[in-house]
């Protein structure tokens, strides 16, 4: 027998189930013990850059909106810097957390994030990625959290050079990753778990 590599196995995922809101958005669930829910305010003061609203709905394979999902987003500030302990390139906007969490609307399931348009982030091999927001979706019936990204349809030039978008085999699916502009500072990013418009999900 050779030596053991001794790496640990990642803890297996299990579905967030129907009551994820109890644990992660307790106040939304009517259990007010923390004095508010985490991730509801991404802006904690005046922020740099363009303020935007990102909204969307998660649909199942029948086209029914999910009303028991939890959506989280993570992104850099307008300059492309993350409010993270791992950010070594500079100081991110101190009034912007970069992290949002939403239980969706109780009746419609629509999620809404008031945020800023992210700056570009480096690609490990050099160059820049197009501006994007990382998105993570969990819900009953989802065994392991789904990772995707919201890019912006009005960033055509950056998108055309993006190292991920350009490498996608089925280019006709790329629009599933583009947030659609609905008005000044307003974008829609609907997520389809299945069907002809199934969102591209990532294994990053």
């Amino acid at each position: 027998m050779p030596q053991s590599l001794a790496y640990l196995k990642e803890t297996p995922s299990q579905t967030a189930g129907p009551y994820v809101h109890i644990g992660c958005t307790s106040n939304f669930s009517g259990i007010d013990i923390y004095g508010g829910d985490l991730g509801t305010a991404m802006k904690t003061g005046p922020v740099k850059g363009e303020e935007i609203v990102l909204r969307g709905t998660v649909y199942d394979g029948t086209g029914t909106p999910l009303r028991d999902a939890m959506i989280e987003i993570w992104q850099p500030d307008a300059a492309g810097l993350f409010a993270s302990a791992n950010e070594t390139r500079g100081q991110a906007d101190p009034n912007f957390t970069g992290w949002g969490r939403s239980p969706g609307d109780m009746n419609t399931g629509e999620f809404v994030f008031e945020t800023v348009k992210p700056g570009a982030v480096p690609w490990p091999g050099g160059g820049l990625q197009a501006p994007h927001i990382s998105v993570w979706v969990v819900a009953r019936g989802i065994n392991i959290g789904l990772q995707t990204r919201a890019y912006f349809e009005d960033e055509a030039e950056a998108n055309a050079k993006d190292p991920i978008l350009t490498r996608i085999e089925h280019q006709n699916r790329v629009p599933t990753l583009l947030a659609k502009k609905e008005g000044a500072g307003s974008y829609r990013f609907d997520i389809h778990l299945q069907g002809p418009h199934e969102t591209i999900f990532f294994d990053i």
Partner: protein
Amino acid sequence: MSNTDRPGGYMPRDRDWQPAGLTPAYKTTIKRSPQAALLSFPSTLSEETSPVFGHGLIGALDNDLIHNFAQSGESAIGPRIIVHGRVLDETGRGVPGALIEVWQANAGGRYRHKKESYLAPLDPNFGGCGRTITGEDGSYEFRTIQPGPYPWPNGMNDWRPAHIHFSICGHGFAQRLITQMYFEGDPHIRLCPIVNSLSDPAAVEALTAPLDMHRTVPMDSRAYKFDIVLRGRRQTYFENRAEGM
């Protein structure tokens, strides 16, 4: 600069060990699982960074589910337990500063949620959620009551094993994880379609917390130990990355 000063990207997820998206015995997955292949690519700064949750966020009773929703002088009903362990990464390092959020049913198997219709009663002194942040070595602890098993609408007679839901935020968005902890010896574990979304019996064991008599508080609470492993980053001096990355 030493090798370990230059962490590489996250090691890929073992998708054979993790549950598949589509596990038909758990019926809700049928219309909620993606059909196309996931798009694989190496992690970037977007996945290698994550928000910071300070210890100042956490209130004194946040990790005490027996008391954090209870009226003054009251406590939740049920077998008193301590759940403790460490959050590690795949290389075995402790993960300090990780946010752990938990939620669970009460001792009768009932959640405090308006869509919950199980006939077991609510406990007026039990909310069912708690949170904590790991210490310098990745350790965590909370106190709660052991939740009960409960029936759920899937097959005609499916019951969930007793479980506690865990949400963990580590150091990179790529590590984001939600899972469930089960209790050693529960005969419902092997019968559960959600547990059986895991094909490897060792993966089920990794979610099953043993009784830990060394951490019990005599005449007060039993203890269960549940270690959690988040994805780890590759470590190499020979990383083909542009300067400054």
